[in-house]
């Protein structure tokens, strides 16, 4: 508590500040560039396999191609899949953009989208030039029940898909780590945050301490689980399983400093190419959690992907909270003394 920068504020070396010597390895992290994610979920599978994460049920969520839903005790990588209208009218991606491949955005085929949406084929706008050969957006035979029932449907069946592989953020100021009363959660020499499963007693505090809703207590097990950033692989000089399996290098693993530079350059590149909605999430070391060890390049507002728009580590207000508790405790003491004054 003496060093308040340890709970909030600038922090350039979380591992060193946690007691590792000056020769600890540089901070490791992920840069997940969602603009080149194809939603293949290889990361989800690789993570499950490498880490021996148990099955978490087979649910058809009925909302998109995402049937995983969210990160959790048994889901340490989660590919979000968002289908959005990409607007009608003027072409969004002129023919010249087609050649840029993944520098642009994955855009569904208007013809296929139209077919699934029950729209007459051939009415697609001129903007649908990048056909990634992905399947249509609706279930087979769904055409008959879509029709024009939804007045808000995008014109001409144009839409885009946003895909993003979510993971534990390995925060600089980690709410889960701060509140853990057993020391089960700890900061590794790589600056990541890991649960020691032989220590965790399942108190559940970390679950509510995380401003991103990442860590969770596993049913039937009772302990809290989350991404370890493949601590075992890192120890052996390997990259984490998800990054290793990612076929498009949407998930990039490396030294955090270098990843931040790479990400900044990538945003600049996308902006030059007209993808002005590209923005980084969690890359700022001065944000409410001191920056994430795992950060993202997004193409829409964070909440569209299921991220909180302005996360803050709850520990930030620890002094203020204890101050109010101290006032309340003092008031209780004073009143308890006072009630024994007087008659009766």
């Amino acid at each position, binding site marked *: 508590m003496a060093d308040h920068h340890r709970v*909030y504020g600038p922090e350039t070396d979380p591992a060193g500040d946690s007691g590792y010597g000056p020769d600890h390895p540089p901070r490791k992290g992920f840069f997940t560039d969602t603009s080149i994610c194809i939603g293949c979920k290889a990361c989800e599978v690789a993570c499950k396999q490498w880490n021996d994460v148990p099955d978490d049920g087979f649910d058809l969520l009925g*909302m998109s191609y995402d049937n995983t*839903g*969210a990160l959790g005790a048994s889901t340490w990588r989660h590919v*979000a899949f968002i*289908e959005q*209208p990409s607007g009608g009218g003027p072409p969004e991606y002129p023919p010249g953009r087609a050649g840029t491949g993944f520098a642009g955005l994955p855009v569904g085929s208007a013809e296929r*989208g139209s077919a*699934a*949406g*029950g729209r007459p084929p051939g009415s697609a706008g001129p903007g649908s030039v990048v056909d990634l050969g992905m399947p249509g*957006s609706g279930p087979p035979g769904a055409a008959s029940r*879509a029709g024009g029932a939804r007045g808000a*449907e*995008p014109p001409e069946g144009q839409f*885009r898909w946003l895909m993003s592989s979510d993971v534990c953020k390995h925060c600089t100021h980690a*709410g889960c780590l*701060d*509140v853990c*009363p*057993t020391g089960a959660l700890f900061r590794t020499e790589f600056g990541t945050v890991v649960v020691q499963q032989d*220590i*965790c*007693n*399942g*108190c*559940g*505090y970390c*679950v*509510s*301490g*995380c401003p*991103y*809703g990442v860590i*969770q*207590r596993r049913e039937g097990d009772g302990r809290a689980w989350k991404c370890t950033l493949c601590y075992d692989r890192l120890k052996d000089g390997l990259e984490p399983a998800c990054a290793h399996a990612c076929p498009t290098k949407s998930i990039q693993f490396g030294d955090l400093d270098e990843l931040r530079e790479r990400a900044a350059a990538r945003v600049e590149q996308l902006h030059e190419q007209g993808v002005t909605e590209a923005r980084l999430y969690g890359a700022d070391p001065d*944000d*409410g959690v001191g920056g994430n060890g795992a950060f993202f390049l997004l*193409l829409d507002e964070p*909440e569209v992907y*299921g*991220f*909180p728009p*302005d*996360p*803050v580590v*709850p*520990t930030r207000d*620890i002094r203020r*909270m204890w101050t*109010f*508790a101290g*006032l*309340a*405790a003092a008031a*209780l*003491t004073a009143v*308890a003394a006072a*009630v*024994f004054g007087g008659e009766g």
Partner: protein
Amino acid sequence: MSRRSDGNRAQPREQGDYRPSAAGIGDAVERRGPGGGQLGPLVRADGSREQAMVPAAEFRSYYGRQILKTPAWEDKIAYYFFAGGLSGGSALLAAGADLTGRPALRRGARVGGLAALAAGTYFLIADLGRPERFHHMLRVAKPTSPMSMGTWMLAGYGPAIGLAAAAELVPKRWQGTVPGRLVRALARPAGLAAAALAPGVASYGAVLLSQTAVPAWNAGHEEMPFIFTASSAASAGGLGMIVAPVSEAAPARRLATYGAVVELAASQRLERRVGVVGEVYSAGPAARYLQRASTLTAAGVLGSVLLGRRSRIAAAASGLALLAGGLFERLGLLHAGIQSTEDPKYVVEPQRQRIAEHGPSRAR
């Protein structure tokens, strides 16, 4: 997205919002207009629905799915907070009774305080995912973890209230023995030590809940310690009115009155101050529990003020109402927090408002 880049942020929400563009994608649209939240998880199992206090502002989310995890804590943790608070308040009452010569109140409050602590400890451990590892809490003392701080406070408080209560329970035939005399001699210092730690025991739970990302708990960090301590006072006052004859119970009645008044006032302030998150206090189980809490607390105080000094039975009934009110208060606060994690609105809207007013959170 439009290529007219500069307009990107200013585009109408429709442009960027998810909408089902094809059949087969359900109504789980992320955008919710007024009342739209009622489609979501706030429709409780019992069919009750959230009543929006203000027209819901528009917000975006990932298919309306919750962002935060639902707290792992069950009702047992509310029982613990209630029992721990009752114990702390009782320790204060017992110390005062000890110093002012009210033996019945002292005895009842000490024994009641220990019993409450024992029950609370049971609920606390039972709520762990791995109860057999509860002692792992004692591996570290961690100032950043209110749960760790609370554990160590309890580690000091438990033996103190235990010793004080043990002195009341020493059978007559052992009172002359050396251990018996020792325990009785240590009762007052132990009782005073327990009373010194009691306000911490009664209040730390509020910090524990507030130092989370749970919107209702985090936003309520100013009032929650006062609700916790006041509720402790009301509960302990209630216990005192049950265990002590009316002639000795005046301090208990006064403590209960103070507790009830502050508890009700702080709750009112909390619900009004925290903005959109305040909705959760008037929805679902939280609303029911809090309603019961204020009704029972008000009834208990009324009973104690009007009849508490005349009738032991009326005093005991008032005391029971106060105890029940305290329990429901903790259940209400627990469920308000749970409910505030179940709708992404309570994460996105306050944070968006914060960004709009002050810009994104920055370390300074």
